[in-house]
């Protein structure tokens, strides 16, 4: 007998002010640029200042979001920690390579190398918490977070664990931004938050963030939602997307029109948003369509922001106007589908139901 999988708590640090769980996009951070950094919480409340000094940004953001998620779930420890990250603490990797090249492989120190290890966030949370349980890090571009969710769901449904801390984290790094501008994966010209999704230009605006959640097979007071099902596909041709989504939804005993909304991964890249635009005028025409990457920026684990947002919508029953992509009325949504892809690859589907 498979167990249900619940989302019992959330924690987030992002380009928006998401670190306070009592708020839900009350004030919107506007920006104009090609990359945008996270709003810093008061790290001192979470990390001893001496330790914080040499800490990579990804570790710092994750200390805050993971502690917030643990606190809200009322837990001191968990059975497993699973983190998704496209590039890990890339800032430290970049600095280590730069130092190595500039100084002819001399005078290097270990901290940046250690923090370059992709699993450094999962490791440091385990260390802080004293968690000796299962510890995994997934690093597969824009399904890094979804791979983590998948693994957690597998363990919870099979009753191999009761509480799992699942997270998603990535950082903005200049070298990465500039080189990806060369190949037009990141926009050449700055664009504003309000315009990015309709920019009509190639590439994305790069963002960063850390999102953590406690998933459990026990429902409790704090529970937000239930994770009904997931799909991960490394590639789908454009004409397979619609049918794959329909099939996924229907195998869960519902039809597209039973969904209260779909959260789409539009990121303002002229070349690759067409997939969402086509779905928006066909498969999803009659249901509410929501978007978020104008608020979060695009990065490998930006879908963690969508997961955070879906759960906030369930809890508050509210859908801020800035998230709406079409004009279909959305009222107290109970069932949301999340669909994401990046540059036509690594498609993911997540089906959530309000608790």
């Amino acid at each position, binding site marked *: 007998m498979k167990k249900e999988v619940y989302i019992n708590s959330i924690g987030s640090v992002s380009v928006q002010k998401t670190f306070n769980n009592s708020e839900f996009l009350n004030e919107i951070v506007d920006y104009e640029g090609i990359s945008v950094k996270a709003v810093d919480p008061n790290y001192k409340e979470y990390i001893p200042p001496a330790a914080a000094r040499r800490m990579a940004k990804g570790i710092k953001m994750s200390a805050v979001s993971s502690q917030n998620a643990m606190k809200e779930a009322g837990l001191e420890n968990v059975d497993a920690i699973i983190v998704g990250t496209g590039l890990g603490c890339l800032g430290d990797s970049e600095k280590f390579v730069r130092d190595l090249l500039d100084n002819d492989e001399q005078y290097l120190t270990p901290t940046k190398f250690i923090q370059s290890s992709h699993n450094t966030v999962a490791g440091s949370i385990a260390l802080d918490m004293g968690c000796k349980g299962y510890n995994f890090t997934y690093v597969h571009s824009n399904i890094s977070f979804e791979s983590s969710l998948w693994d957690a769901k597998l363990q919870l449904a099979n009753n191999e664990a009761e509480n799992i801390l699942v997270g998603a984290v990535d950082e903005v790094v200049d070298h990465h931004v500039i080189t990806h501008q060369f*190949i037009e994966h990141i926009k050449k010209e700055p664009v504003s938050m309000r315009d990015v999704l309709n920019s009509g230009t190639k590439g994305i605006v790069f963002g960063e963030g850390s999102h953590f959640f406690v998933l459990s097979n026990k429902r409790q007071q704090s529970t937000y939602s239930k994770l009904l099902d997931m799909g991960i596909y490394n590639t789908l041709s454009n004409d397979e997307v619609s049918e794959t989504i329909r099939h996924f939804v229907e195998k869960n005993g519902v039809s597209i029109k039973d969904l209260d909304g779909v959260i789409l991964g539009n990121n303002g890249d002229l070349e690759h948003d067409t997939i969402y635009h086509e779905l928006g005028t066909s498969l999803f025409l009659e249901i509410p369509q929501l978007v978020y990457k104008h608020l979060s920026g695009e990065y490998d684990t930006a879908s963690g922001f969508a997961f955070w947002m879906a759960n906030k919508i369930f809890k508050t029953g509210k859908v801020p106007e800035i998230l709406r992509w079409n004009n279909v009325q959305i009222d107290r949504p109970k069932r949301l589908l999340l669909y994401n892809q990046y540059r036509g690859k690594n498609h993911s589907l997540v089906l959530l139901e309000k608790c």
Partner: protein
Amino acid sequence: MNQGVAITGMGMISAIGNNVAENYASLISGKTGISKIRHIRTVHENETMVAEVPMTNGDLETVLGLGPDTLSRTPLLGIIAVKEALDQAGIKDILAYRTGLISGTTVGGMDKAEQYFYDYYESDAHWNHINGLHAGDSTQKIAEAIGLSKSFVTTISTACSSAANAIMLGARMIKSGELDRVIVGGSDSLSKFTINGFKTLMILSDTYNTPFDENRKGLNLGEAAAFLILESDEIVSKQNKKVLAYVKGYGNANDAFHQTASSEHGDGAVLAMEKALKVAGIPPSQVDYINAHGTATPNNDLSEGRAILRVFKDKIPEFSSTKPFTGHTLAVAAGVEAIYSVLSIQNNVIYPNLNFKTPMSEFNLVPETQLKNKEINTVLSNSFGFGGNCSTLIFTKEG
């Protein structure tokens, strides 16, 4: 409940061979792959020894029919190994069943990223590698090379236990019916990044590594790719497939002690081994051979040795580390050693722990130093990494 997951194919490339058969031949003839560094230009070339795959990128590209400088070394090695594994498993139509690919890597495309770090600003000659830094990109390149589309493809990076965790996840996915078959393992190429990183940690040996020896001086870095094919019982019986061995047990735990070092008494390692034995449903006494992590760093071998003593008490099975053959292949270590474990079971043989002379002062543990023939039904393989990651796999002859 304790049903094993069938292994039907294996493929690898390492410093001691371009395929599984060559690796085995080197293992039983005591031929090491460790030498002075040849392919990478580094100021540390006289202070360290490594285990490089002899083929250059150009050689690999020729074998694969690719143009020059198409891919980073990580996917090049990976494609070679995956193709061999698919051949052995007799898989022709990759999309015939729900097939997944789970790979472990630590560096991804770092070899190209460090090489062209500043060149990217000068010209567009190497821009094809910019997106290759993503660890996941190397896995996707492997998926493309074998025509795997519309499928579950992911990448794990838990430092030196990555491939163990890829094998573990694959086995769990097959067991729970989420996939019918899955390609699991890892690929990692050598880079200046890792050579210098390990150098700053002061755990590189300037000579041949000597696991579990009192006078061990550290590890030799290596590079490799190693993949196994796991298939469901249904496919195995329907196609009457030859099963090479089974993934019977797996355990993952965190040492929660230090970002890079292992705890003095190997708490994480003990937990990983105990979990794996529990999943396998066997007592420690049933283990015929331990393929140890045995990196030859002062810290690992002490911690792992103590952990083995805690789990196996006064009945320690024969054990050895194969790192003196292959070097420490980082993310792939557990993939390389999974294949060696299966070969041990198939051939009833225990590999020598080369270069061992003096037992460690802290305990009375002596690895096998000669090739030994013995009926092998069960092998336990350890892999530990940065971030406190500890993983154990158990392989058996019977399901």
